[in-house]
């Protein structure tokens, strides 16, 4: 570290690369108040600043000032603007300087040339995911009711996908019997609903059925109404796979 020296009014000691330094203005200069010395220091480490303060205090005493260094203007690293510390003395500097150094060190870290992917990678390694409580569909004896509860679709929409009237679907909700062919279709739809509800929750399953899908060229509801069950099943079963690709 360079030894602090007394500066002429308006003079600023040039910063040397990777070196701590600074200067002091006597009480009579424009930079200082009439009563006290002022100074500035640049450094990248708190210990260097404290070393400077100790040396400056000693210098002030040697120069005939009975006052401790009362005011210090601190510039940190490459920062063009000097933060003002106000009335401090060298012995209490640590506690005042530490919070000022923290943002400087963070700013210096941000100055590193990091790509968005580098930033994301660093953040992802720290927190790759956020906890979310999943919806767990539990099957009952009434498949029609499960389908309605797991998708939150209207009876009209569900009936259309099952190729029956809304009135008949209402009867199913109340436990009415159905043909094996219709039951097979209902159970297939419930299978889709169970996957989607586990993946997105009932509200998300409803959104999925209603939103146009690029691979279908329409909504899954419309595709089911049109008998394209296999195409819908392929999209739904995408969510039960976990391959490395």
């Amino acid at each position: 570290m360079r030894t602090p020296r007394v500066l002429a009014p308006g003079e600023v000691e040039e910063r040397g690369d990777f070196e701590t330094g600074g200067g002091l203005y006597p009480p009579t200069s424009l930079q200082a108040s009439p009563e006290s010395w002022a100074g500035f220091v640049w450094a990248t480490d708190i210990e260097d600043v404290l070393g400077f303060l100790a040396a400056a205090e000693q210098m002030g005493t040697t120069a005939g000032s009975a006052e401790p260094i009362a005011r210090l203007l601190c510039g940190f690293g490459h920062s063009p603007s000097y933060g003002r510390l106000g009335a401090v003395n060298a012995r209490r500097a640590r506690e005042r300087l530490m919070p000022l150094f923290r943002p400087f060190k963070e700013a210096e870290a941000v100055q590193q040339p990091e790509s968005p992917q580098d930033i994301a990678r660093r953040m992802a390694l720290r927190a790759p995911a956020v906890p979310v409580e999943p919806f767990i569909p539990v099957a009952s004896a009434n498949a029609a009711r499960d389908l309605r509860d797991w998708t939150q679709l209207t009876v009209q929409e569900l009936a259309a996908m099952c190729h029956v009237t809304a009135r008949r679907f209402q009867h199913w909700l109340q436990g009415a019997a159905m043909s094996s062919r219709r039951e097979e279709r209902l159970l297939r739809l419930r299978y889709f609903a169970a996957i989607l509800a586990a993946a997105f929750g009932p509200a998300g399953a409803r959104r999925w059925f209603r939103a146009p899908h690029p691979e279908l060229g329409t909504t899954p509801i419309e595709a089911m109404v049109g008998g394209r069950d296999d195409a819908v099943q392929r999209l739904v079963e995408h969510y039960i796979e976990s391959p490395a690709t």
Partner: protein
Amino acid sequence: MPLNRTILADINVDSGPFIVLRHSLPLNDALQLGPLSVTPGSGRWNTPEGTLYTASSQVVAWAEFCRWFWDDVEAAAPSTSTPIQPWELARIGSQALGEEVPVRSIYEIRGSLERLADLTDPANQMYLHLAGFPLEDFLSNTPDDYGLCPELARIGEQLGWDALRAPSAAWPEDGYTIAIFAAGRLGISSCRVVFEGRPTVAMAVATRYRDGQKPGWIP
């Protein structure tokens, strides 16, 4: 040119306990689907009986998730800026992706393998090279084209490999996929949920996507 089976037979195999992670649909009683269910013929190391894909860490599991559900990640754009700006990433990177992305369980799978082929081992990579396997195929990035990876998996399974360990194409720097074949699944002793949730925005940005599948909001 087909892979040289004789040279592949020289690849060293290891035995011992393992702990791996896997993302899966949350446990679903209604479907009778478990976290160890597999789909025959699916994925980079696909085999006729199905391969159980697992990861070396949670980050790798989530990267594979984002790569697989890339279109849902696309739909879950978290910002109005396209692509997302670095300052936005710093602000919202630790938030979860939106509800367009499915919730997933992360399972920790423990067990013991008799014949694990570690394809990240330099000596084994030399055999792969000599057998005609291009090492760049580990990270091939064309959708639905895994190069010679499926053929290597098929031959490896016939040679008695329980599982193989290879670089993860979704997290290539230091991520590994452990692909467990049917015989290796017999060595699984436990499987438990260790996390349930959605990946963060940062996770989606950091993932490596297949060509043409990188969501538009990711730089």
